[in-house]
């Protein structure tokens, strides 16, 4: 009975007393919000970068001005990809918070959304670029031979197929990002991890709050993975 007693006491201390469960629930809300918006930014940014890069590689003849612009854009994209994928996301977060937004008072979750969005965009870009490159060249030629411009061929023929192909990988990126946002506590953003850690620092008992945090992450990841599998199956069957 001693164990049950201790369990109950610890549970009360860590979650019930002073409404400490709010740290977990509010933190979960912040984590989900940051992840969701960061993924959206990542997808937009990733598609833009991927389209620029594959246009640069693929598009045929064009005016000197367009080609020059494209070369510059492509160069900038490569710098972005190299820097973002070559440095830890935490360092990027800290730089954006303490250097770029140093002199402005700004919502921390906004900073986190920007930082994780920019980070995610680099990985999404490579996913999407792979997706575009994996579309048969004949699709492209069929579009152009009907009279579609490069842009229209992209929008109507290549990207819809790409999107369908990369959807599972994008879902996976969402899962990865969800876990990566757990370092947001470094800029004192009270996300799920930070929420658990705050409880730990108040109650001096680490097991319960941190275990709760871990279980919540795990539950969300498992749920998302299952949804993703379902989606993949749906996509595959609609092709048949």
């Amino acid at each position, binding site marked *: 009975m001693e164990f049950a007693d201790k369990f109950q006491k610890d549970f009360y201390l860590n979650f019930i007393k002073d409404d400490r469960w709010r740290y977990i629930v509010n933190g979960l809300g912040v984590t989900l919000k940051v992840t969701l918006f960061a993924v959206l930014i990542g997808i937009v940014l990733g598609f833009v970068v991927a389209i620029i890069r594959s246009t640069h590689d693929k598009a045929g003849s064009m005016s000197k001005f367009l080609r020059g612009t494209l070369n510059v854009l492509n160069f900038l994209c490569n710098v972005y990809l190299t820097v973002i994928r070559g440095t830890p996301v935490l360092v990027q977060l800290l730089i954006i918070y303490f250097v770029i937004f140093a002199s402005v008072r700004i919502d921390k979750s906004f900073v986190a959304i920007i930082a994780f969005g920019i980070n995610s965009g680099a990985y999404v870009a490579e996913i999407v670029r792979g997706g575009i490159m994996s579309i048969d060249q004949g699709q492209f030629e069929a579009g152009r031979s*009907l*009279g579609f411009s490069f842009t229209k061929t992209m929008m109507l023929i290549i990207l819809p197929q790409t999107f369908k192909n990369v959807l599972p990988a994008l879902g996976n990126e969402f899962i990865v990002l969800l876990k990566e946002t757990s370092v947001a506590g470094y800029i004192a953003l009270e996300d799920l991890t930070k929420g658990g850690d705050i409880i730990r620092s108040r109650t001096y008992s680490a097991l319960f709050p941190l275990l709760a945090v871990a279980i919540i992450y795990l539950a969300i990841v498992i749920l998302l993975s299952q949804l993703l599998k379902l989606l993949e199956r749906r996509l595959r069957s609609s092709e048949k």
Partner: protein
Amino acid sequence: MKNNAKIAFDPEKDPLISVKDLKKKFKGLHALNGVSLDIYKGDVVFVVGPSGSGKSTFLRCLNRLEEPSGGEVYFEGVEITGKDVNINLHRQKMGMVFQQFNLFPHMTVLQNMIIAPMQLQKISRADATEMAMQLLDRVGLKDRADAYPNQLSGGQKQRIAIVRALCMKPDVMLFDEPTSALDPEMVGEVLQVMRGLAEEKMTMVVVTHEMAFAKEVASKVVFMADGVILESGTPDEFFNHPKTERLQSFLEKVL
């Protein structure tokens, strides 16, 4: 539209397509070494020759899917290889059919057919659908309008690819080995559709290995070797009285 300006082009007298000294180089390899050819309205030109002789490259230069390295292509009086030409406008009038069909897998048969007329010629969905259904009926695939491409056989796919191109009401149809990817039992159904087009006096340029078919429907047969046209003539001249040794030995091998 300045790009569509036609310089005194008479479709009954002037060639629909005029190719002058066309050259194409791929990184040191000369795929086309100066090809000249006039194609008139209603012509059914077959292009034959050994593998690697430049047949596909020639065909793909006609609508600039391949960018020529030299020479000119005139289409309906406009030099489409010229600077500042909006090639997209001209391609709308040049249908192309590929060996690998290249149907859009994320669209139904009907969507495949109506997307270009709706997007590029601003034809209403209702009108485009009506036209598409008529064409489908003609090739015996009306009941497959809502199918997706990978629910179709190769022969069906290629028939759809042909009518998809026809939906743009092109003035010329370009075919690059339309039956080469097909199982033998499906070749006939595709050739039947092409035969119908030829009978309707559609201008066609066909790259093929189907010699019997060329003999039957061509108005002119062209023999390509090493990136040039070595010989050309009516099917009778071409197949029964070949002049060059290269063509004679080629015909011996393939007939």
